[in-house]
Structure formats: structure tokens, C-alpha cells
């Protein structure tokens, strides 16, 4: 693969991505960089959603609702959480609010 020339100021970022992806800096493709950023954003969202969660409230819920809220914390997606809990989306949303789980929106 042809060696790419990057702006020198990007070097530390590219090295960081290289360490994370296991790919050599010289062979980092645009797709690999975009994938890294996408994963980074999702990870950031997961982290922020876990802040201030009322774990005690979740622990008292029936197993399926717990499963739904855990999948919400993992995916950030209410549809997936409702499917996993086996309840309508507005029901899981009520438990989300009671469990103090904030939906993080970043555009």
C-alpha cells in the first residue's frame, strides 16, 4: 500500500488511533479513522449515560426491565431496550427516567 503523507500536527492523533486499531500509521485508511471516531463517540455516550444512574432503582426492577435498561446503557437506543425488556417504548422510557439515565445526544 502506498505511503500517505499526513499533516505533522495530526501525528499524535494518528499514533493514538494506530495503537487502538493495531494498524500501522502509514497504512491507516480514511475508513479506519472514521470507524475509530464512530467508536469513540459511542463510547463517550455510554460513559456519560452511566453517570448518576440510580442503580438501586434498577436492582429492584424485574429481570426483563433490568435487561432492557442495561441494553439501553450499552446501545443508547430505546427501541433496542424496549425489545429486550419486552415492553412498549414509552414504558421503558418511564423506567429510564426513574433510573436517572440521561439520553446523550451529540450531533
Amino acid at each position, binding site marked *: 500500500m502506498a505511503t500517505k503523507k499526513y499533516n505533522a500536527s495530526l501525528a499524535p492523533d494518528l499514533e493514538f488511533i494506530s495503537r487502538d486499531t493495531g494498524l500501522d500509521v502509514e497504512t491507516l485508511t480514511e475508513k479506519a479513522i472514521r470507524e475509530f471516531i464512530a467508536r469513540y463517540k459511542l463510547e463517550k455516550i455510554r460513559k456519560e449515560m452511566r453517570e448518576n444512574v440510580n442503580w438501586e432503582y434498577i436492582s429492584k426492577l424485574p429481570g426483563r426491565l433490568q435487561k432492557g435498561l442495561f441494553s439501553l446503557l450499552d446501545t443508547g437506543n*430505546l427501541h433496542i431496550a424496549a425489545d429486550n425488556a419486552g415492553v412498549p417504548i414509552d414504558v421503558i422510557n418511564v423506567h429510564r427516567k426513574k433510573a436517572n439515565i440521561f439520553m446523550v445526544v451529540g450531533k
Partner: protein
Amino acid sequence: MKGVIDTCFLVDWVDYRRRDILKLIFDEVILLSEIEKEISDQKARKIIRNWMDERFMKFIRPSQRDINEAIELTTNSYLSTLIGEIHYADALIIAHAKNTGIKNIISENHAVLHLPEHHPLYMDVVVLTAGDIILHAAKMGYINVRSEDDFANILGEYQKETKRKYSTHFVQKLIKELKV
């Protein structure tokens, strides 16, 4: 302007005190049958019924083309770290918005928000969040905003009422657009 609405957005928006600004921004909002099925709350259903009676909200069954495309999109999303996991209901909204030429999606779902950036087929789709809708309303004078702080407070009020959290970057972007 027309828009296709997502349940994740709708379930919180119906509880928002300024929910009627949606009617000032959009001429018509499309609610797909798959989306409507996901709502059980009586209050939400009543508001939806009222909006339908007012002909502001239109109930539509997705076409076979929308369904096929949604299945394909959902399947592919499992394979792509770039797009992330897309639920069938999200995919249906996206496919319908694209296939009908409506283009506007009202959603705050992470996967939906970032799909147009990464998927060449959906680059023309525009995803509007509550923040974008509040911004439009402020710019058009439907909400009385005298300063950046006023606007930030209104955004804060929405986030507090719905337990949603906008990234600092997104709030700054909205405030910047307000100035323009």
C-alpha cells in the same frame, strides 16, 4: 416542511411543555404504522389522535420498498462499526424519508443521527433533533429569545424535562447558528 417522526423522540416530546412548536415548524408529520404500534401511553396516544384530527400528523403504512430497504439497512448495520446498530423501526423511518423524498427525519437516536454522515445512500436525509426544532422556532420568532442565555435556558429546560443531555459541542453549534 414535512418530516417523518421517530418514537424515541415522540415519547419525550409529547411531555414537553412547548410541544406545539412542532406544529409551527412542520406542515405535516408522518407517523409510520410500525412506530405508532410502539406507543402504549394513553396521554401520548391522545395527543397523537388530536394531531391526526387536526391533519397535522398523518398515519402511513410503509411500502414494501421501505420494508425491504429497512431489513437490508438493519442487517448491514450489524456488520458496520461505522454506522452502529440500527433498529428496524429506525431503519424504516430512514428508508421512508428517502424513498418518498420527504428527507426530514425527527429523531434524537444516535445511530439515526450519524447514518447520513456514513452511508452514501442516505446523505440527502436530514435528521432534526429537538434542539434543531427549538432553534428553528427561536429563529422564526415562535419562541421569545432575547439572548444566547435565554436560548441556552430553553434548551436546558427541554433537557431537564426529558432527561436528555446535549453534548457541549452540539449546544455551542446551536447557539452559533442562532446568531446567524
